[in-house]
Every structure is written in C-alpha cells, then in structure tokens.
C-alpha cells in the first residue's frame, strides 16, 4: 500500500452502491427511436449535417462540432432521421434544445459505419487527436469536457502523470465500478493511449476501497499485460472511501499531494485526470474506429425492481430503460440524473440519455423525501469543517444572500466544486450549494453582459469611424470638383487675372493643418497599438480576437479619415 495524502473536510454519506452492483453489466435493448440533443458537452453546440428523411447507419456523424471547444455527434442506431427540432432534454433548466431524432424499423438489421482502425501504439499524435475529434468522445464522468482538447493539453503544459479517476465517490453511482469489473484491460489500454499522447511518465489509478472487485479485476489485468506492452508504469492506488475523493482536485491532492491552483487546471501542475468510461470510449474510437454511441448508465433506486448497470445507446428514452429495470411507477417519488448530492431532478421520464448521464436514481418518497424547510443559519460552522476546498461556506452563504458578488469572488466562490458536503451537514437544512450555484450563474451572466457591451461598443466605434471616413472622402471629392470647376472658369477667363487672387494662407488654416498632423500621429499610434494587441493575442493562442480585429479596423478607418482631411487641407492651402 502506497502512501496517500489527504484533502481537508469530506463526509461519509451511506453509499447505497450495493443496490446496483448485484447484477452484471448488461446491454440495454436497442431503442426504436433516439433523440440526440446537439449540446451534450461543455462548449459550443454541434451543427446538424443530416437532412430530415435521410437514412443513417449506426456511427454515422449526424452533427459536426463548431469552433474549438466542441464535440461531434453520431447516430446511435440505424434508421431514418425523422426530425431536427427542439426536444425536451435532461438539463436542470428543464428546457428544450435542438435535437436530431432518429427512428428505426424494429425488424431491420443494424449496420455500422466505422472509421478505419488505428494502432494506438504506433499512430502519430496528430492522427490520434484527429480521430478523437471525429469520434465525439467527451468526459463521461458527468462534466462532458471534449476529450480531444484534453488530449492536446501537452502542447502548452508538460504532463508527468495521468490519473484514472475511478474513485466514484458519490452514493448510488456504480457505472465506473461495473465498467472496471467488466473491461479492466480496455480502460488500462485507453489510459496508456492517452498517457502516450500527453507524454505522461506514469499512470495512477485512484480508486476507493469500497470497490474490491474492481480493484481485483484491475490487478489481474495489470498482471496479464506483458511488460513490453507497458510503455509507462501503471500503479493502482487504493484510497479510503470518503466523499468527495472523486473530485478531480481532491483526488490529485490525495494521490500526489499537489494542489491545483485557484482558478487553474490540473494541467498547470502536470496532471491529467480521466474517467474510466472516457478511457474505454477513447480506446474504442482508436482501436475499433467506433465513435461514441453508447455509455454505461447506472439504474438504481428503490422504485426499481431490477436495478443494475446497462450499456445504453445515446438518445435512448429514459422511460424505456427504467421499464426494462422494472420501474414501480406508483412508488416513484423522484427521479434524479446523477447522484443525490450533485445530480438534479428530472421532471419527466420522456427524456433521452445523453453523454453525461452516468446514473438515474428512481427513488421512492421515503428514500428521497422532499427537502425540509430551510431554517436560519445558526453559525455552527459545520459546513466549514467538511468543505473539501477549504472555503468558508457560511461566509459565502451570506454573500450569496446579499448578492455581494465581489466579496463572494474574493472568498474564492469559483473554487467551490459544488460537491454538496456543506448542505449535507447543515443542521438548518440550508441548500447551500443551491445558493452558490445561483451566485456563480449570476456572476457569469454579468460577465457575459459586460463582454457583449464591450463588443457592441467596438462595433459602434467602428461604425462612427467609417461614417467619419466616408464624410471626409465626400468632402475631399467635393473640393476637387469645386477646384476643377474654378480652373475651367479661370481658363475661360484666360489672361484676365482672378479678381480675388490667391487666397492668403490665414493663421486659421495653418492651425488646422497642425491639428490635423497631430491627429494623424495619434491615429497612427493607436493603429500600431491595436495591431500590437492583436498580434499578442494571436501569439498567446487566444481565439477570441474578433473584438481586437474590430479595434484595428476602427483605427484604420480613423487614420484614413484624417489622412483624407489632411490631404485636402494641404491642397487647399497650396493653391
């Protein structure tokens, strides 16, 4: 047993994992209709690339990711696209989102469209990254972060350790446990693949000691694999069960005694964390050329007659999975997606499985009673004792109530991992996490508004500059015309000298010229500044340079306007 370290706080909620670990992993029945929402991941939604009425094979892309942080989406059954419309999605907002609906003929056989298989041990990293991008693999632990972005993190950070996050600390959820029992070798191979891609020197598997079968399976798989197969050493580290040791930052602290800096990423300290499900999906994408079309979902709760873990196609309706697991509809009190501490309630069962659905808890009323009435805070400090991020939950609660966003940020609200430990121990039943989530959302909304305002301001300034330039050019043309006309009249009058003669260069126009020259220098300087800022942003790899480009264009327009003015003023003074 190797040395392990500790993170502060934590709680010991009853695990209730036994409900769903008594049965082996099985495959869910193939659904006849799937709903695939276009936004199942963190980042920009994908754009549909199929038409209504088009026949698709399993594994065929139906939507292509847009932008940097995004993921593709693939058909999870063989059938016909019947609609691309807003459908209810499993999201805490209980809203609707654009989704691709595919229906299949129940008797038709399934045909697959796979990409060519690659050998992950020899393929070069560009090929592998491209494959991940085309496979729609995202973090399957619950966050849904696109894996190809994580695979490319070594371009900016040096990674020394890849951690397989198999802690799975939240009550009820056993999807990773069953996955590791069933496919330990695939998970380890996936870890080897991503470790090779990231240039990691070692792989650590962090797993809680409440999963002895999974640990045994991993050890057997490790003993099986021949030594030359191991490009980098793998170590299994068993940690004692305590919630939330499956938190990325908490697990890193426990295994390596390194702390992720506030507002930073694990990559900043040379660590990459992956969920076992993601690793298997990655391996399948590379080794078999099979995109992400299914995932393992834990079906649990006392309202189910046959709880267990199933491998379900993405987009499968939740009610069909629950019915398969023997849902006792009259006993169902509440349906949760995710665990009881970090998940959220679903309003109906007519929702599809998405890439981030790791668990469905169909709970009876006695099992998950409605939350008690919130009482005033008695300042007992219990929340502070259990906070795994060493925050001051009580202070944050007051700031959230008073909507003091600046202070909440000063007290590192954004380091809160929303694990729910504070709300769990609160004797006043205050939904603390709910307050933090709301406050975080409000702060993010404010930031977004500020960004929008800034963008609009640049657009407005650009328009003003353009109008200015157009006016200056019009004026210059008018002057040129007037001059041409006066020359014609002068020519007609021939030798007769102009009665007014050459206009004397007054002090006014001299002053004007001087001012225009100063303005020209200032405009040149601001153009240079804007160009420099844009170049800097380009070097630092910042993709959001649209505003800076507008600023450069504005400076160019301004400069052009002033130069036109200056030229016409010079012309006027020289004649």
């Amino acid at each position, binding site marked *: 047993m190797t040395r392990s370290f500790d993170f502060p706080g934590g*709680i*010991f909620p009853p695990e*209730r994992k036994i409900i769903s670990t008594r049965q082996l992993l099985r495959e869910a029945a193939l659904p006849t209709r799937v709903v695939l929402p276009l936004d199942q991941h963190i980042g920009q939604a994908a754009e549909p690339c199929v038409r209504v009425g088009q026949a698709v094979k399993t594994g065929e892309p139906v939507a292509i990711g847009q932008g940097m942080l995004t993921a593709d989406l693939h058909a999870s059954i063989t059938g016909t696209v019947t609609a691309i419309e807003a459908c209810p999605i499993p999201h805490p907002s209980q809203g609707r989102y654009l989704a691709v609906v595919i229906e299949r003929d129940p008797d038709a056989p399934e045909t697959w469209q796979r990409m060519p298989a690659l050998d992950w041990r020899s393929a070069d990293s560009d090929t592998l990254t491209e494959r991940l991008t085309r496979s729609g693999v995202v973090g399957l632990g619950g966050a849904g972060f696109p894996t190809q972005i994580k695979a490319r993190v070594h371009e900016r950070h040096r990674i020394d350790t890849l951690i397989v996050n198999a802690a799975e600390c939240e009550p009820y959820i056993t999807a990773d446990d069953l996955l590791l029992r069933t496919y330990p070798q695939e998970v380890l191979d996936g870890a080897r693949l991503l470790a090779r891609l990231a240039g990691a020197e070692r792989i650590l598997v962090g797993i809680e000691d409440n999963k002895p079968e999974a640990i045994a399976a991993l050890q057997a798989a490790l003993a099986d694999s021949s030594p030359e197969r191991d490009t980098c050493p793998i170590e299994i580290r068993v940690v004692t069960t305590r919630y939330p040791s499956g938190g990325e930052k908490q697990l890193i602290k426990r295994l390596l005694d390194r702390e992720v800096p506030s507002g930073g990423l694990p990559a900043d300290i040379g660590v990459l964390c992956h969920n076992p499900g993601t690793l298997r999906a990655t391996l399948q994408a590379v080794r078999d050329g099979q995109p992400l079309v299914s995932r393992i979902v834990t079906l649990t709760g006392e309202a189910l007659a046959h709880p267990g873990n199933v491998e379900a196609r993405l987009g499968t309706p939740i009610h069909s999975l629950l019915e398969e697991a023997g849902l006792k509809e009259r006993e169902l009190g509440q349906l949760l997606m995710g665990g009881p*501490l970090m998940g959220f309630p679903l309003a109906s069962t007519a929702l599809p499985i998405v890439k981030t659905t790791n668990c469905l808890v169909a709970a009876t009323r006695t099992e998950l009673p409605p*939350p008690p009435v*919130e009482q005033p805070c008695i300042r007992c400090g219990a929340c502070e004792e259990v906070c795994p991020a060493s925050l001051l939950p009580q202070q944050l609660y007051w700031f959230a109530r008073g909507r003091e966003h600046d202070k909440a940020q000063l007290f590192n609200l954004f380091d809160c991992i929303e694990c729910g430990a504070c709300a769990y121990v609160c004797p006043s039943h205050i939904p603390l996490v*709910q307050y933090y989530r709301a406050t975080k959302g409000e702060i993010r909304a404010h930031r977004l508004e500020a960004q929008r305002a800034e963008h609009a301001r640049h*657009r*407005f300034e650009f*328009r003003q500059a353009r109008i200015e330039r157009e006016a200056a050019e019009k004026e210059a043309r008018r002057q040129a015309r007037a001059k041409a006309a006066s020359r014609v009249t002068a020519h007609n009058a021939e030798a007769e000298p102009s009665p007014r003669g050459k206009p004397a260069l007054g002090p006014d126009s001299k002053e004007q010229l001087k001012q225009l020259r100063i303005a020209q220098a200032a405009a040149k300087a601001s153009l240079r500044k804007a160009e420099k800022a844009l170049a800097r942003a380009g070097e630092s790899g910042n993709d959001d340079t649209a505003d800076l480009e507008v600023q450069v264009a504005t400076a160019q327009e301004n400069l052009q306007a002033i130069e036109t003015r200056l030229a016409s003023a010079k012309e006027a003074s020289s004649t």
Partner: protein
Amino acid sequence: MFEVIADNGILAAIVALVVLAAGFGALLGFAGERFRVEGDPVVERIDALLPQTQCGQCGYPGCRPYAEAINQGDEINKCPPGGDTTIEALADLLGREPKPLDGEAQQSPKVAYIREAECIGCTKCIQACPVDAILGAAKHMHTVIVDECTGCDLCVDPCPVDCIDMLPRPRSLDEWHWPQPAGPGLPQQATSLSLIASDRQLSEDRRSQRGAA
C-alpha cells in the same frame, strides 16, 4: 556666499526648502507631461458601466455621449436598458444618490427580427442600426445578425412596412443558471438538491460509532 548661508540657520533652511520645492516641482511637471492621460478617465469608467446598446433612449446619440453628459452633471437614471443595476453602479462610482429609473424598464433582453417575406429592401434600417447588425442591400431582403444586435429598437421606426419585430433574445443552455433559493422559512423549490433524510440519520449513527471507536 556659502558661508553667509551656512552661518545663518534660518537662511539655510529657506534655501534648502526652496531647492527641494524646485526639484520636486520639476519632477512633478515632468511626470505630468510624460505620463499624460489622453481623454477623461472618468468618462471611460462611466462608459464601461453603460450597456452599450447605443439606443439613444437617454436623449444622446449613443452611450459615450451620455457618459460625457453624466460627467458634466446630467442625471444617472436615463438608461432604460441598463435598468436599476446600471443606476446603482453609476451611483457607486460617482458618489451620487441612486434615483428611480426615468422611463420604462426593459423586461428582458430583446433582438430585432425582420419578417423577411415582407421586407422590401429599402436599407433604411441598415442606416439606423448603430452596430452594423443588419445585413442586406437595396431591393434585396435584409436580415439581422442576432449575435450583434443590441436590441436598441432604432430600426423599428424607420421601417416603412413595419416588418421588424422585437423578440426576446434566444438564450443558449450555457446562459441558463440555477435560481436563488427562496430563503429561510419558505418551502424549497423542487430544483433544490434533495438530501436523503434517512441517510442523514444513518450517517450520524455511523459518525458516532466512529467517535466511540
């Protein structure tokens, strides 16, 4: 000369002070020239607080002119798109009393939407748009770039066929956030995290067992 000064204490002090004053004066003057700030920084800060819709509902042609006017002493409650939050932020910045909004507050962010079948391609709305968010050409259909539209309303009036509607801005999933709980003494919303009451008891038993052991 030096001896006279050295002998006379009061004179020495005066000379020293004059020399110091001249030295620091020169330094300050140089710094003032060298690090001169172009423009008025207060106006910049006021401008940063305004919502930049450029709608002109304050009576000024854009947000920056209004920021300048506020700096000159105009009221801070003339910005309906900004609403109470902007008034409060401005009051905070300028040390003035917040006042109720002059005008109707906007309910939710809006965007312009052109009913394209009815558009005759007159380009009047394009000329009115302060942020170049409308795309089109003479005698061709126009359309609004939703991401650029600030919902300022300025395109609605010039339209000769009234084909522009102001619709609520579509919200992406990322923009959604949890609502704040109701507060103590009130029943919690269904969206609240549901703790397992029986679990809580079990876990307390377990903790006391641990304590005993």
